[in-house]
């Protein structure tokens, strides 16, 4: 019974939509009462026939009543569906919006902890289960109680309470059996699902490992292994079918017994003159009306069990706290001016080593900062700290710490080009104007030209209206990078951050992009992290990161004189580019 608690959890929503729910429940009750009329009419007619008291007038009246009833019941049934099911799907819409809004407030740490697949499952399957509870769950609860109650009362009052009691004897068995089968089914179904997902994993593995399979010539054996897995799937599904197939025969057996009891004992009552033969006929029709409420009661528990688990998961997700948020009284004016890092240390949650360790440097407006270092040395952490993806203390922007600005204000001063050039499945124009949806076509094209991607875009048949992503064209890594550069440049931001964003373009394009940056970024601050030093060697200040610390700093010339990592790496990369050209220096 404790599963029914989910109805209490959902009470806030029932209250919010109380008129719909109350209206729906009232209509359901009315429908239940009206459904009792046809069996009653059957009894009346049978008795009239039996007693030879039937005439055309009586028959016509009763039949017209039934026809009118059919229409009324039709309308009412339609209405309660709109009220109750309609409210339930509104709840789904509401929860989905809430979840989405919540997601937009969550910082990156949240997304590191949760897998996309799980978040998707919560937003789809779990919401579906909650919707079922608020719709079908409420229906089955109300319907089984009202319909069941009215039918039993009518049978007992208008015909015979003794006969009612006798006929109902097998019915609890049915509620028990359906709920029992339901939970068995749920368990077995879980196993069948697991077998299916293991089959899915096997196929996934076969497809990824196809090279090994082909190299060793084991295609047939792979098929055999697949067959074995699919045997398991069949077996688990058969065990589901074994329970599933129990439902119908059990129900009709129990119903059959109930009918048997009512006919057998009812006949005795008729003989004794306690009830008429017409009443007996009505009685069996009433009995037919009881099947559904009994079944519903069994189902109710399964719906509610799933709904409760899902609601707990979704509300747990909605309760997750915001990691990075606005301080009270934060300024809503976008910061400008000098940026200074004064970070004593920062480490990610659950990480042993420091990601930033004693990082201090100043950047004047208009300067370009190059950041170099091995993978994992802290380059990206450094620039992400500036955007407040997490709070590393303390970074000053225009003399005030970052926390004294609202997130919105701070980020409006920053343009960011991430490492993993993520584009949305939309047109190229939409992607470039992502931060400024109102940008004119000319502005979009200017940004694309600056990022050296304009020529590529106009070569597509749809030009700027080309859709990218799964449903559209597949872009090369370099093209994606340049589009995301254009996306950042269209903002003309106070601070531009390029996080290893030139790695996939060739040397000539890189040079062209750097050249246009020099032109448009005059007077504004630019951070560039790069593995390839040619992207940063022109910087006003170059920082080499190592294990979260600054290991070398200075201009290119200064660093080349230091004979450290920077110099070695630079020479190595010079040679590397020579090799790429085929060994001939050009």
């Amino acid at each position, binding site marked *: 019974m404790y599963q029914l608690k989910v109805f209490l959890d959902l009470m806030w929503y029932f209250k919010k939509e109380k008129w719909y729910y109350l209206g729906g429940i009232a209509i359901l009750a009315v429908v239940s009462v009206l459904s009792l009329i*046809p069996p009653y*009419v*059957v009894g009346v007619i*049978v008795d009239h*026939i039996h007693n030879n008291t039937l005439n055309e007038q009586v028959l016509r009246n009763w039949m017209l009543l*039934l*026809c009118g009833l*059919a*229409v009324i*019941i*039709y309308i009412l049934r*339609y209405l309660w569906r709109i009220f109750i099911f*309609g409210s339930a*799907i*509104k709840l789904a*819409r509401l929860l989905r*919006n809430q979840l*989405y*809004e919540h*997601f*937009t407030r969550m910082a990156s740490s949240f997304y590191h902890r949760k897998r996309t697949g799980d978040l998707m499952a919560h937003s789809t399957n779990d919401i579906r289960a909650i919707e079922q509870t608020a719709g079908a769950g409420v229906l089955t609860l109300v319907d089984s109680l009202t319909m069941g109650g009215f039918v039993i009362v009518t049978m007992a009052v208008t015909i015979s309470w003794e006969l009612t009691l006798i006929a109902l004897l097998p019915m609890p068995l049915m509620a028990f059996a359906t709920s029992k089968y339901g939970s068995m089914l749920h368990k077995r179904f879980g196993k069948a699902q697991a077998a299916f997902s293991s089959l899915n*994993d096997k*196929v*996934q*593995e*076969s*497809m*990824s490992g196809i090279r090994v399979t*082909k*190299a*060793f*010539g084991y295609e047939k054996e*792979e098929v*055999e292994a*697949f067959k074995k897995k*699919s045997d398991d799937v069949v077996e688990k*599904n058969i065990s589901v*079918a074994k329970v599933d197939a129990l439902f119908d*025969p059990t129900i*009709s*057996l129990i119903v*059959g*017994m109930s009918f048997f009891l009512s006919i057998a004992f009812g*006949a005795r009552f008729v003989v004794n003159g306690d009830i008429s*033969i017409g009443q007996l006929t009505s009685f*069996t029709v009433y009995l*037919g009306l009881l099947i559904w409420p009994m079944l519903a009661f069994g189902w109710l528990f399964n719906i509610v069990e799933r709904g409760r688990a899902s609601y707990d998961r979704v509300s747990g997700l909605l309760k997750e706290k915001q990691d990075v948020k606005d301080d009270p009284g934060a300024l809503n004016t976008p910061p400008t001016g000098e940026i200074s890092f004064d970070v004593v240390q920062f480490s990610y949650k659950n990480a042993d080593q420091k990601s930033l360790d004693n990082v201090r440097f100043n950047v004047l407006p208009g300067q370009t900062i190059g950041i170099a270092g091995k993978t994992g040395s802290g380059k990206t952490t450094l620039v992400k700290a500036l955007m407040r*993806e997490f709070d590393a203390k303390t970074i000053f922007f225009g003399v005030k710490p970052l926390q004294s600005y609202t997130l919105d204000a701070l980020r409006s001063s*920053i343009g*960011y080009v991430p490492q993993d050039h993520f584009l*949305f*499945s939309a047109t190229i124009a939409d992607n470039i104007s992502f*931060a400024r949806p109102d940008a004119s076509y000319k502005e979009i094209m200017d940004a694309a030209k600056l990022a050296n991607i304009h020529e590529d875009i106009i070569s597509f048949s749809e030009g700027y209206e080309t859709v990218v992503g799964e449903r559209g064209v597949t872009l090369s890594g370099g093209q994606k990078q340049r589009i995301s550069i254009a996306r950042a440049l269209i903002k003309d931001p106070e601070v531009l951050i390029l996080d290893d964003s030139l790695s996939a373009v060739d040397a000539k394009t890189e040079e062209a992009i750097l050249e246009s940056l020099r032109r448009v970024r005059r007077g504004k601050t630019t951070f560039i992290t790069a593995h390839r030093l040619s992207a940063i060697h022109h910087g006003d200040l170059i920082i080499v990161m190592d294990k979260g610390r600054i290991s070398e700093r200075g201009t290119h010339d200064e660093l080349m004189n230091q004979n450290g990592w920077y110099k*070695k*790496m630079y020479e*190595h990369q010079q*040679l590397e580019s020579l*090799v790429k050209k*085929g*060994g001939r220096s050009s």
Partner: protein
Amino acid sequence: MSEKHKHLLEPLNQRLVFKRLLTYAKPHWRWLIVAFILLIGGTGAEILGPILVKIFIDDYLTPGIFDTQALVWLASGYIGLHLSAAVMNYTQLLLFQKIALRIIQELRIDVFEKVEKLGLSFFDQFPAGGLVSRITNDTEQVKELYVSVMAIFVQNIVFLIGVFIAMFYLNIQLALFCLFILPFLIVIMQLYRKLSSKYYAEMSEKLSQLNARLNESIQGMAIIQVFRQERRMNKEFKEINQQHHEAWYKSMKLDGLLLRPAVDVISILALVMVLSYFGIMSLNSPVEIGVLYAFVNYLDRFFEPVNQMIQRLSIFQQALISAGRVFRLMDHDELAPDKEGSASPKLSKGEIEFKNVTFSYDGKQDVLKNISFTVKEGETLALVGHTGSGKSSIINLLMRFYSVERGEILIDGHSLKSFDNKEIRENTGLVLQDPFLFVGDLSHNIRLYDERISDADVVEAARFVNADSFIEEMPRKFQSPVVERGATFSSGQRQLLSFARTMAKKPKVLILDEATASVDTETETKIQEALERMQKGRTTIAIAHRLSTIKNADQILVLHHGEIIERGTHDELLLQDGLYHKMYQLQQGAKQLEEPLI
């Protein structure tokens, strides 16, 4: 996705798909007949119940005759019928489900088998995710068709026929009247099928848009936040959510208008018809009340199967679309290259010759240009060059993953094309750059599917490649579990395992695609030792990144943009002061920087 795979995305004709699905049921005809007989038996037994009650009411209750023996017979008949109906129905329900599950299994195996036969050219271009979903998810949809649509339809139709037979037995005239219900139901069904397929398609389209947007937003949340587009994205999401909601609402309304409520109206009207019939009849002549009871009872049971069938119509259509996708894949003809000609030469020495080989994947751009070389029995050839120079293509051709069209490849003097694929696979050992491990245990990953390789051979192979030391240290040794993609093993360990896997076959020709991932010094030493031992006495072609492998090679080919630009031994090439020399310098420098090698 390339042009030649576009057709895989187009839908197939639904009627043909349905016919083809039915052919899968053919081999099961024996059990299907058994299930049918049980179904008819069970339905019959269930339908006879009300007739017995009718007999009781008309012959005993109404006239007031109570013959104990006859009544006991009737009662036990009634109970017996219900019990046997329950048993028969349970058995037939289960049988139908079992057959349906077997059919799906066959369909799955067929499509998987077909995919395994396709050439690597297909896998290199068709996204793996799409393949997996066709083999599993789409066939799962088809399962719904068999399990919850066809089985239910067959059962309910038989039940309805049974009900009609009983009605005809009881009263032909009234039964004829009842037939009038059918056109109404058919109209509702058709109407619902037509409208719902439209509404459901709209709803599922909106749902997939909604999910796509959600998925994309979760993945691109950092971008959304950095560019401060939370408000706009929220608004857009709300709009999509609203559209989905409206589509859902519409189909809910449709369900309300045409499903249960509508069928219920018809059931009340049918009741009106039956009652009027008996009422009017009774005005002129006496009627049997038992017959009336039976009719009312049958009508009660008549409409539940109808409801069930109508509700399943939309699943039916979705399943056909999925089945179409599966059949498309099954019909795709891009098989792996097979042997040509009737001769079946044996690979005995392992002498390899490339003669003016030029090759292109797409027919437009040549990735190999006029490549010629010879590797004598037991010698080692090292292929050197940067990414995209054509090294991997040479291996793809040699393994016959792709077929050579221009030029020729000879092994032991026979054209590569004349060999059985099996002969090539058994005698050449390919070590892949990405040492793919399968879920299972270590010994499975070394032996793979070759039962001829004994446990002792597995241990021997592991020892031969220096993999035994870390394996022996693990608590379950060779039975140690391997998780997905071997994530619990270091990249060095994975490389050693893939060496062991290759050496367990004792190949005559060794083809090495050396991994670039850097490993710790100790493992590196082990790998180098193992490599030297593996090459000894074996013809070896290596895409080499390790200096030791290159230095020990009898012949080095330096590739650039698909051409051989330098060739010779290590010492000869160093003297030439060309690309090889530069690469050598680069590699020496990289060592100091602890950067990954080229």
